[in-house]
């Protein structure tokens, strides 16, 4: 069933369009930077962008920083929100369940396909950004970490892979919210919008001092901690917390989604 779901995802034009758009945005930024040579001053604008002008090999990290706050969560919310609600509104959910596909199996397969989408899209952004970055800005054998220490190209690649994994994992909270809503409503649009509403709320609260008490538990609190992977040595504490917070969200939200889906009357 997981294979079928992944095939379904891959045969859908929308998947590739959203991945293409995700890759396009950083490329546009790179071209503008190359043409104008106007990088943001260090410490301002998206992370790493200032360093990219000197070393294109850092561009994958910068590109992920560009798509992380909005583009990526939107793409994930749309995909995960469509998972069950899309089948419901197309009418195919009733045929899947009567085939029969167990409800738990279906939910697990949907989750797996969302995970694959996450990994594929984040990796696609990183890989295209690597080629765009190195061809536009050239690459230096030695980059500089945020702490000022030199990093070898090997080290940069290794850490970029870690960033890909961390960012993909950060998105899984959004995916779980969207998947939960997807089992509740029959409209994929509502599910995606609901997940984005949760996301926006979280991002607003993160910047609000009055919300200090809940801040450590917000799903977006540790999103930007991936930057710590480019410090030397890597600053693990926030990364670990980020992984943990997302993990809790996944377990709780998917648990509720499962309980809801198992007992739901499918009338679509």
């Amino acid at each position, binding site marked *: 069933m997981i*294979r079928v779901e992944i095939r379904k995802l891959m045969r859908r034009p929308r998947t590739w369009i959203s991945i293409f758009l995700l890759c396009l945005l950083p490329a546009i930024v790179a071209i503008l930077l190359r043409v104008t040579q106007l990088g943001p001053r260090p410490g301002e604008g998206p992370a790493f962008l200032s360093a990219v002008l000197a070393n294109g090999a850092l561009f994958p990290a910068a590109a992920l920083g560009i798509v992380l706050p909005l583009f990526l969560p939107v793409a994930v919310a749309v995909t995960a929100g469509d998972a069950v609600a899309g089948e419901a509104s197309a009418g195919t959910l009733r045929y899947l369940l009567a085939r029969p596909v167990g409800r738990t199996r279906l939910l697990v397969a949907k989750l797996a396909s969302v995970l694959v989408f996450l990994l594929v899209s984040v990796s696609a952004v990183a890989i295209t950004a690597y080629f765009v970055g190195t061809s536009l800005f050239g690459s230096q054998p030695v980059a500089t970490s945020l702490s000022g220490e030199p990093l070898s190209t090997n080290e940069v690649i290794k850490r970029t892979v870690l960033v890909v994994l961390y960012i993909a994992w950060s998105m899984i909270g959004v995916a779980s919210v969207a998947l939960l809503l997807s089992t509740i409503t029959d409209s994929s649009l509502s599910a995606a919008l609901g997940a984005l509403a949760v996301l926006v709320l979280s991002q607003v609260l993160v910047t609000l001092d009055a919300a200090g008490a809940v801040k450590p538990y917000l799903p977006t609190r540790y999103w930007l901690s991936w930057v710590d992977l480019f410090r030397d040595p890597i600053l693990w504490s926030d990364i670990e917390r980020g992984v943990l917070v997302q993990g809790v969200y996944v377990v709780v939200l998917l648990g509720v989604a499962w309980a809801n889906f198992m007992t739901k009357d499918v009338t679509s």
Partner: protein
Amino acid sequence: MIVTQGLTKKFGSVLAVDGIDLDVRAGDRYGFLGPNGSGKTTTVRMLLGLIFATSGAAEVMGQPVPRGLGTALPQIGALIEGPAAYPHLSGRANLEMIDSSGPGGSRRTRRTRIEAALEQVGLASAGRKPTKAYSLGMRQRLGLAAALLREPQLLVLDEPTNGLDPQGIREVRDLLVTMNAAGTTLFVSSHLLAEVEQLCTRVGILDSGRLVLQDELETLRAPTGRVVLRTPDVAAAVTLLDGRVQHRDGDRLVVAGLAPEDLVDRLVGAGLKVHEIVVERPTLEEVVLSVTGAGSDRVDSGRSEPDTLVGGPP
């Protein structure tokens, strides 16, 4: 094949299905009749495990619902409230997708089974066209093909001829009768009396959530004991059949208490001409109306459409 006891479903305070006792036997062509909104689809969905019953029990192919459906469903083909397909994929790709989603459909035979099913429903030449470009009738045929993919022992079909032209309805009916002859039990829900009358051997009639009738079609349509006669010599016939004419409408007489052969004997003996003489049977429509409340007097109203014995097509 399908047995339910007091199967009930409440949506909030709305009683959608009210304690029905279905009994569909192996080999039946069962027509599940009822007006729109009477609970047919809710019942079908309960039988297939999509909706959970509020109370009562159901058994499908000997398996309890919903617990045992995992073993029963692979042998059931279903069309539930209209067909559904992934719009960007071709019909073939859709069938492949649904077949590979669950158990009971071997991958080795998938190609041949899909081709056979498409052939059966007349979609073999639909090619690679995405289903979003399909007409309503083609979608319906694709839905049927999906139900036929694994040589089901039980077909549960909700409005199977919806969207088909008369030619298509005929084809589907022939297909279903052939499959039934080969051993497939049919459970067809419909609000179209004519469809059920032409296809089914047994009917259950649902009226606002209650099963008001369940019987062999043959029994329901048994002769009423009256004979309908058309003759140009109406006045003479009425005199001859003194007291036995129950109803008169132009040259059409409804006669009670006389076997058709005796009636013909008397008329011909008296030198009267006969245009048409038929045994009166209630139509399914009349049966339905008589049990669903409103039109309970219609059976006796003399507006029956009898089986023709003389003249006219059988």
